[in-house]
């Protein structure tokens, strides 16, 4: 049995006096995929931010790659990709410049080549030299996906990756997710509802008022294993 790539123990978070996450117990194995479904304000984004090491939990702890997320060393941060509601992009830089910058931050061998490759993958090659402030929300979202994935992280944390995307955009992102899973990455994504992604099985969790519950049969998911998902397959 492989080690879990994400693990939380009684994870809790409050903002002021409002509990946002309560007693969250989560386990995701390496190479697995999981969707966390929940309404607005349920705590999905907070959970992902904690897993990415951006926020500290109020109680309990979260482990990623076996490391406490409050003290993630650089070599582990290198292997995490986060796509959030905010794009983390610089509006006054072009799409290409943004990706090249992040490629350099992640010490990729050929920043320019990586940037070009990913611009192509997200269908933004024609607007590569346009500044991001001119992008539509959907284009920015796609670029943000490229930013999150360009270092080929072992763990992808995606916060509502299909939000604000039209059909083509959603297909692109779905393809990227599929590609990531195929190369062995673990994917933990949140959504309001489960989208269909051909060829990938996901475990499904539901988060409501800060509590996380499994909806799928198996507790740990191995890629390709049989699970009962909300899609009713």
């Amino acid at each position, binding site marked *: 049995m492989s080690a879990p790539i994400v693990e939380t123990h009684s994870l809790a978070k*409050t903002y*002021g006096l409002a509990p946002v996450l309560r007693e969250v117990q989560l386990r995701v194995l390496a190479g697995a995929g999981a969707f966390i479904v929940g309404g607005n304000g349920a705590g999905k984004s907070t959970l992902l931010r904690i897993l990415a090491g951006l926020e500290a939990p109020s109680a309990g702890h979260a482990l990623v790659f076996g490391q406490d997320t409050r003290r993630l060393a650089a070599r582990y941060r290198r292997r995490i990709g986060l796509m959030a509601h905010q794009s983390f992009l610089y509006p006054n830089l072009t799409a290409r410049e943004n990706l090249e910058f992040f490629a350099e931050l992640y010490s990729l061998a050929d920043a320019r080549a990586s940037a070009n490759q990913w611009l192509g993958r997200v269908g933004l090659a024609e607007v590569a030299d346009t500044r991001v402030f001119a992008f539509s929300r959907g284009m920015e979202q796609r670029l943000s996906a490229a930013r999150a994935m360009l270092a080929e992280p072992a763990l992808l944390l995606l916060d509502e990756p299909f939000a604000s995307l039209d059909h083509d955009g959603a297909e692109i992102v779905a393809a990227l997710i599929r590609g990531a899973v195929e190369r062995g990455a673990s994917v933990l994504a949140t959504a309001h509802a489960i989208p269909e992604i051909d060829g990938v099985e996901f475990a499904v969790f539901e988060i409501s*008022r800060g509590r996380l519950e499994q909806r799928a049969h198996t507790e740990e998911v191995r890629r390709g294993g049989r699970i009962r998902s909300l899609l009713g397959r």
Partner: protein
Amino acid sequence: MNNSAIRNWLGFSTLALMLAALFMVFDYVPPEAEQGIAQLIFYFHVPLAWVAFASFGLVAIAGIFYLWLGDRLWDDLGYAAAETGMVFCTLVIVTGSIWAKPIWGTWWTWDSRLTTTFILWLMYGGYLMLRASADDTPQTARFAAVLGVVAALDVPIVIASVRLWRTIHPAVLVTKQGGHGLEDPRMVATLLVSLAAFTALWAWLLWLRFKQLRTRSRMRALAVRIAFASAAASDGR
């Protein structure tokens, strides 16, 4: 020793030492030849200054422990030390002004020690303004800790630079630190007792404020637990 015992012990010590100090200042120590009776303020002014600086040091030390250990206790201690120290620092400036007027006829002089104390006062003010303008979160506590540490580390440089500044342009008025040729042993004794009295006063006020802040922190933690419990309770519905 439980909390109210500490509080009472500190309170009574302060009372006793203060009475002793007051007696010594007004009845025991011989007045200084040059400055007359106004010089007696020295026995308040100097201990107040030592305590004000020491309190700021405590703010910094508490800050370091908070950054290292993350326990809210150190943050509460630092905040209490800042508030208490601010009171004492203000008194140093006020007593300095009261002393300057009869001796030199001006309400303020830029001599090196007063100037340094004034800068300290501004640093205290900045720290307290930072606290006041931010919500009560661990992040604010970290900010305050960092500010306290860098400001305290800066103080020795301030002292050095102000001293150099004053020697290059010596004050027209002779420096008032004439008290540092304390010939009479009674003067030394009075100064030490006064120092002990003001340190006790500081410790007592610090303790009171610190316990208040601790209570507030504990209540907040309790409120959070209640919030979690009531959320759990309403899960069942």
